[in-house]
């Protein structure tokens, strides 16, 4: 009996143990299944995130396939480039060689950027080509530089496009326009002591009036570092005095804009004196010359005589100078033959000085220009205006810039200019009127205030546009 009880107990214990093991195994299996399911889900999430990062994360694989090119300021805006001036004066503005800078985003090294030149379709047909580097590779900071070489041709416009392989279209710089720049000093003449109210200062709008002529040919005229001066009064400048004054002013005018600098010197007068002898066989006691322009700087009469005996000349009496009514610039010399006998004929001669026309200005190729304003200023204190001087100044600066060359086909063929280093413009309208500021005489308006430009390439404007002024040798 006790044996049966012991066997039954052992069977019961074994069954309980087996049941317990089964529970544990089931729990383990279930737990493992749950874990496996969670792991599978987690891997799926990870794969999806990986795809997202490939698309959006810039620091993950293949950066060179994603970098884009960006131009740096100031290359993003339209600008003027002064191609005649030394680059060292202002590398961002001067010289034909332009360093265009930009960078890749992200800022990583080793990205190749390709460049292309974009010429403005409105450029003149004879505009020489610009050139630009084909490509550059970004530096450690992502930056890169490409060199653009501009032509000297005024008004030429160019852009540069830059592009990485990841970009469908290049991004363009602002447009660079070729300009030239020259500098000026204005030297005013002091007022004469005898006429303290007479100002020989330049008109305030004198330089701004020049834009009519020089903007169309892409020249800027700007004040130099030393842009003003005064010089003592001189009533009149002869050729020798002009030369002496120019030499002395030149030394004082040189500054850090030299030799791209001109000096515009305001002066009273710089006319030419001539002498004539008036002769007649007088049949009256009173004799009078014809009208002559008065010379203000020396005595008018050199001699006034009559033939008192054959071969003997004696002085006329009551010699006077009379101005024309309302026109004091015009005078006549009169005198009387002493002891004149009615019905006789007496030889008379009057030698005098006179003014050979009115000089408006004097220029040349040296960069010093004289503007004669005393005559106008005395007649009207508000004259001359900048507009009044515009033609003379533009003409003289045109000469200083090389117009018109002795072999240029549009030069005035008149032999008056033959043998000089420069000539004048010969173009006229169909009606025979001159049509350029480089005509040899002052006068007229409209086309006479500008450089002729309708006969490309053989005209004054296109000469100024295409000429290299980096070697200018003024003051």
């Amino acid at each position, binding site marked *: 009996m006790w044996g049966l009880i012991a066997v039954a107990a052992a069977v019961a214990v074994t069954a309980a143990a087996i049941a317990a093991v089964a529970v544990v195994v089931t729990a383990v299996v279930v737990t493992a299944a749950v874990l496996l399911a969670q792991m599978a889900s987690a891997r799926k999430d990870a794969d999806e995130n990986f795809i997202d990062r490939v698309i959006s994360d810039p620091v993950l694989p293949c950066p060179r396939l994603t970098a884009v090119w960006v131009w740096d300021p100031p290359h993003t805006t339209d600008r003027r480039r002064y191609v005649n001036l030394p680059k060292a004066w202002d590398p961002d503005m001067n010289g034909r060689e332009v360093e265009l800078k930009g960078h890749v985003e992200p800022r990583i090294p080793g990205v190749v950027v390709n460049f292309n030149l974009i010429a403005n379709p409105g450029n003149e047909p004879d505009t020489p080509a610009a050139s630009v580097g084909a490509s550059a590779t970004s530096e450690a900071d992502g930056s890169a530089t490409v060199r653009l070489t501009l032509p000297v041709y005024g008004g030429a416009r160019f852009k540069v496009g830059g592009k990485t392989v990841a970009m469908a279209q290049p991004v363009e710089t602002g447009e660079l326009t070729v300009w030239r720049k020259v500098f000026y000093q204005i030297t005013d003449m002091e007022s004469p002591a005898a006429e303290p109210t007479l100002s020989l200062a330049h008109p305030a709008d004198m330089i701004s009036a020049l834009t009519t002529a020089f903007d169309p040919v892409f020249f800027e005229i700007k004040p130099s570092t030393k842009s003003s001066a005064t010089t003592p009064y001189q009533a009149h400048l002869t*050729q020798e005095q002009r030369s002496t004054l120019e030499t002395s002013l030149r030394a004082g005018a040189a500054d850090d804009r030299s030799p791209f600098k001109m000096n515009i010197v305001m002066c009273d007068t710089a006319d*030419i004196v*001539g*002498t*004539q*002898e*008036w*002769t*007649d*066989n*007088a049949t*009256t006691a*009173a*004799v*009078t*010359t*014809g*009208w*002559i*322009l008065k010379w203000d700087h020396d005595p008018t009469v050199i001699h006034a005589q009559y033939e008192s005996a054959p071969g003997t000349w004696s002085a006329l009496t009551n010699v006077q100078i009379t101005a*024309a*009514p309302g*026109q004091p*610039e*015009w005078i*006549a010399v*009169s005198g009387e033959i002493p002891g004149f006998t009615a019905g006789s004929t007496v030889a008379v001669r009057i030698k005098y000085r*006179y003014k*050979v*026309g*009115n*000089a*408006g*200005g*004097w*220029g*040349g190729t040296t960069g010093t220009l004289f503007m004669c304003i005393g005559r106008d200023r005395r007649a009207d204190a508000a004259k001359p205006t900048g507009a009044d001087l515009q033609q*003379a100044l533009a*003409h*003289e600066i045109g*000469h200083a810039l090389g117009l018109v060359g002795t072999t240029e086909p549009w030069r005035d*063929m*008149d*032999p*008056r*200019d*033959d*043998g*000089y*280093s*420069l000539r004048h413009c010969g173009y006229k309208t169909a009606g*025979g009127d001159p049509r350029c500021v480089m005509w040899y*005489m*002052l*006068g007229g308006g409209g086309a006479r205030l500008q450089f002729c430009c309708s006969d490309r390439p053989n005209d004054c404007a296109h000469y100024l546009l295409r000429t290299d002024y980096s070697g200018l040798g003024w003051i």
Partner: protein
Amino acid sequence: MTCAIELRCHTRYMAYGPIAFGVRMEADAATHQAVNGLLDRALEVVLVRRDAPGVRFLTKTDPGGLFLPDPVAPPPLRGMSATARVIEEREFDLLDHGRRHDGAATYVAFACFADAISDARAIEVVHGRTQLPPGDAPPLAPLAPSHAQALIALLPQRPGLVARLVARDGLRLEGSVTCAPPANRFGLPPPRTGFVTIVAIHRGPRGGVSARSFQLASPFHDGWATDAFSLPIAELFPELTAPARLLVFSGDLAPARLDLPA
């Protein structure tokens, strides 16, 4: 109007200068008034090349000067004599105001003042190394053979130069020339063709001279060239009006003189 002009010059100059000339202008009262007392406005001193095409005018004022239009003189007053004469003498140098003469050349020189023309002078400018380059001289188009032959037939002697004014499609200057190539002593190649230089002188109170040179069409052959020309005056000298004189030059040949009909 009866003015006078006298030209004073040497016959031989050195190219490096001075190449000086003097003129004496004598104006009547009407001419003095017409040029506003500025006699040189009616003056031109003309140098016509004999050894090559080209013309030079002496410069009257510094070309660096820019002059305002001449003021107009008031009308004559009573008491101003109508019989007076005004005399002005001037000195010029061909090399004034920076002009150059970079070579040897021979010229015919004369001066024109209002209605007056001075005697012509043959002058030579000597240079040690080279000849002065020729002046502007566009080529003339050849004439139709029959027209050219008719003009060449007018030549009384050869070498020689003949010219006439004819009214055909407007006034034309026609003529012919037989000439030898001008010599030079610098070993330069001779020109291929001859040339003519035509000077138009306006003989009014304000004067005025214009000039043009042309290369002839026919080349030199056996040391001579014979050619004819026919040029419309209106195209040659559009501003020319009578009274005017035309002078036609070719090398050292005697010039032809023609007065424009009124």
